[in-house]
C-alpha cells in the first residue's frame, strides 16, 4: 500500500498525475475527491443518507469509518447544502465505508478546519494498515514521514501577479460596517446567527474563522444580499443598508468555489454584465481596457476565453478580478488560497495588505494559517451562533 504526495506549483501536472494514478488502479476500486463538490460527491443522490448508501460496501464496510462529524444528523440534507468542508468530510466518510482500494485527493483537504484536517490526515496516514493507497495534492503539506514525495515538473505555469494587479489602485474611503443584532437561520435548519453585533472597520483585514459548517460563508451571503436576515440590521457609516432588498453595491465577493460567481460563459460577458449592473447603481467601474489589463495580470489568456475551459486554479485567480479592481470599497475573500501554490499565496497576501493600506475593507475566510500569518488582521471567531473578536 502506498502513500504518495504530489508536489509542485500550480499547472505542473499534479492533477493529471493524480487522475492517471487512479485510472491505473483496478476498475471501480478508486475514489476521487476533487477540489470542489462536483468532483467530490457522486451527484447521484438527493440526500446525505443516499450518498452514503451508494458507496457503502456490501455486505459490510472493509475498514473503520472516518467520521469527523456525525452524518446521521445530516441524513436528510441535500449534499449541495453542506458547506465546502462538510462536503469533503462526507466524501472521505463515503470512501471509508466503500470497497475502494485507492483514493486520490486533489487539494480538497485545504477546505478543512485544522481539527478536521488533522483527523483526515491521520486517517490517511494509516493507509498501510487499512489496506488502501492514497495519492494527495495539498499546497499546505510539507514532507510527511512515511509518504513518498513526487515532484511534478511540468512547466505550464500561468503568470499571475496579484501585487502588480493592485499596484495602480487609488486610495479608497470605505465605510464602517456595523452589524446590529443580526439573526439568521435556514428554513427547517439550525440557527446560524443569534443577535450578532459586529463592527468592521475599513483599512484593515478581518479574518473570519470557525469550524466547517459554522456559517462563515453564510455571513458573506448576508452581506452580499444573497440571504436576508430574520432580524437585525446592517449600517454603512451609520446609514441603513439592506442589500437583500436593494441589491449589493458595497461588497466585492470572491467565492470559495470560483464557479459560484460567474455571470457569463466568458470573462468578457461576465465583465460586461457586471459593468451594466454597477452603472445602474451609479458605480463607475474601471474601463474595459483596465479590466483587460487586470485580467491579464491575474493570468487570463484573453477576455473571450471560455471560463470553464480554464484550469480550476486559473479560474480561482480570476475570481479576484473584481475585488482587485477597486470598484467596490469592501472585499470579501472566501478561502482565497484553496488550490493555490505558495508563491501565489504569498503574492495574494501582499495584495491584500496593499488594499488595506489604501483604505479598502477586507474580510477573508481561511483555514490557511500561513496565509493568515502573512496578513495583518483582526481575528473573528464564529462559534455557536455568535462572532467574537
Amino acid at each position, binding site marked *: 500500500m502506498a502513500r504518495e504526495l504530489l508536489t509542485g506549483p500550480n499547472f505542473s501536472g499534479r492533477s493529471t498525475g493524480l487522475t492517471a494514478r487512479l485510472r491505473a488502479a483496478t476498475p471501480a476500486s478508486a475514489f*476521487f475527491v476533487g477540489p470542489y463538490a462536483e468532483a467530490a460527491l457522486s*451527484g447521484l443522490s*438527493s440526500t446525505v443518507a443516499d450518498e452514503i448508501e451508494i458507496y457503502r460496501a456490501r455486505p459490510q464496510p472493509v475498514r473503520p469509518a472516518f467520521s469527523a462529524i456525525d452524518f446521521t444528523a445530516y441524513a436528510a440534507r441535500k449534499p449541495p447544502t453542506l458547506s465546502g468542508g462538510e462536503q469533503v468530510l462526507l466524501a472521505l466518510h463515503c470512501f471509508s465505508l466503500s470497497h475502494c482500494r485507492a483514493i486520490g485527493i486533489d487539494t480538497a483537504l485545504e477546505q478543512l478546519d485544522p481539527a478536521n484536517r488533522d483527523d483526515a490526515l491521520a486517517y490517511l496516514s494509516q493507509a498501510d494498515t487499512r489496506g488502501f493507497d492514497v495519492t494527495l495534492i495539498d499546497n499546505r503539506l510539507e514532507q510527511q514521514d512515511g509518504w513518498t514525495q513526487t515532484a511534478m515538473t511540468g512547466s505550464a505555469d500561468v503568470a499571475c501577479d496579484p501585487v502588480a494587479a493592485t499596484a495602480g489602485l487609488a486610495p479608497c474611503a470605505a465605510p464602517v460596517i456595523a452589524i446590529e443584532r443580526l439573526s439568521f437561520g435556514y428554513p427547517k435548519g439550525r440557527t446560524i446567527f443569534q443577535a450578532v453585533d459586529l463592527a468592521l472597520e475599513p483599512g484593515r483585514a478581518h479574518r473570519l474563522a470557525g469550524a466547517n459548517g459554522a456559517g462563515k460563508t453564510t455571513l458573506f451571503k448576508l452581506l*452580499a444580499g444573497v440571504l436576508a436576515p430574520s432580524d437585525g440590521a446592517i449600517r454603512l457609516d451609520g446609514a441603513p443598508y439592506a442589500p437583500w432588498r436593494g*441589491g449589493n453595491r458595497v461588497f466585492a465577493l470572491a467565492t470559495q468555489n470560483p464557479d459560484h*460567481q460567474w455571470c457569463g460563459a466568458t470573462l468578457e460577458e461576465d465583465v460586461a*454584465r457586471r459593468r451594466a449592473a454597477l452603472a445602474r447603481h451609479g458605480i463607475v467601474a474601471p474601463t474595459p481596457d483596465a479590466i483587460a489589463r487586470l485580467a491579464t495580470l491575474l493570468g487570463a489568456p484573453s477576455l473571450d476565453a471560455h471560463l470553464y475551459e480554464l484550469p480550476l486554479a486559473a479560474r480561482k485567480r480570476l475570481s479576484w478580478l473584481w475585488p482587485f479592481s477597486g470598484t467596490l470599497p469592501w472585499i470579501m475573500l472566501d478561502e482565497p488560497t484553496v488550490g493555490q501554490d505558495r508563491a501565489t499565496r504569498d503574492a495574494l497576501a501582499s495584495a491584500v495588505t496593499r488594499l488595506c493600506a489604501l483604505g479598502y475593507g477586507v474580510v477573508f475566510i481561511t483555514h490557511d494559517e500561513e496565509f493568515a500569518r502573512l496578513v495583518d488582521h483582526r481575528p473573528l471567531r464564529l462559534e455557536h451562533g455568535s462572532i467574537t473578536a
Partner: protein
Amino acid sequence: MTPNGAIVFGLLVITGATIARDLPGLAVVLAVAVVFALGSGKRVVAALGWSAAIVLPLAAFMTLVWVGIVGRAPAEIASGIEGSRANAAAYVAVIALRLFVIAFVIQAIFLRFRGSTPFQFVRQVSAPAVAKKLIVLTLSLIETILHAVDRARIALIAAGLITRRPSWSNLRNGWLLVQTVWLTVVTIAIGRARDKWPIENTLSLIDGALTDAAPRRLTVIDGAWSLLALAGAGIAWSMR
C-alpha cells in the same frame, strides 16, 4: 404499504381518472385519492394546493380558448351541432379535474413515503435495473438543476444583476438567470462525467446499491388500497 403497492394504487387511480367521462365520475376517483392521502397524515391541504397550482394555468388557458373564443365543446363541433358555452365549460372542467387528480395522487404517494429517501424508494420498487437506474439519473438531473438555480442566484445577486426581492432588475435580467442556470447545469454535468465518474465507475456503484435491497412483495394493505382504487375506477366507468 410497499412502494410497489403505492405504484399499483397510483396507476389504478390514474386509470380511473382517465376513463371517467364526467365530473361525478372524477369526483369518485378524487375521493379515493383524498382518502389515501389522509392516511398519510398532514400536508394533504398543501398537496391539494400544489395540484391546483399545477393545473390552474392550463385550466385558465383552456377556459379562454374553449369557453371564451370557441364557445362550444369539441364533441359538439365534431357532431356539427350549435353547442353552448356551458358545455364548453363542462369539457374544460373535466380535463382540468382529471389532471388535478393525477397530480394529486402522485403527490399523495410521495407523502406516504416522505420518511424514505428517493433512493430508498427506488431500491424497493420492482422494476428492471435499467429502469431503476434511469429513475436515479433523472432524480440526479432534477437535483442538479435545483442546485444550479441556487448557484446562479448567488452569482447574479452578489454581482448586483438581480435582487432577492421582486424588482425591475429581476424582470430585466431574468433571462440571465435562465442562461446561467443552464450553463451551470452543463458544466456540473460535464465536470462529473469527465472527472469523477470515469475514475470511480460511479454509475456501476449504483447497480449494487439498487439491487442490494430485495423489492418487497405486495402486502394485504397494498391489496386493500388497490381494491379501493379499482372500485373507484369501476364506479367511474359505470357512470359513463
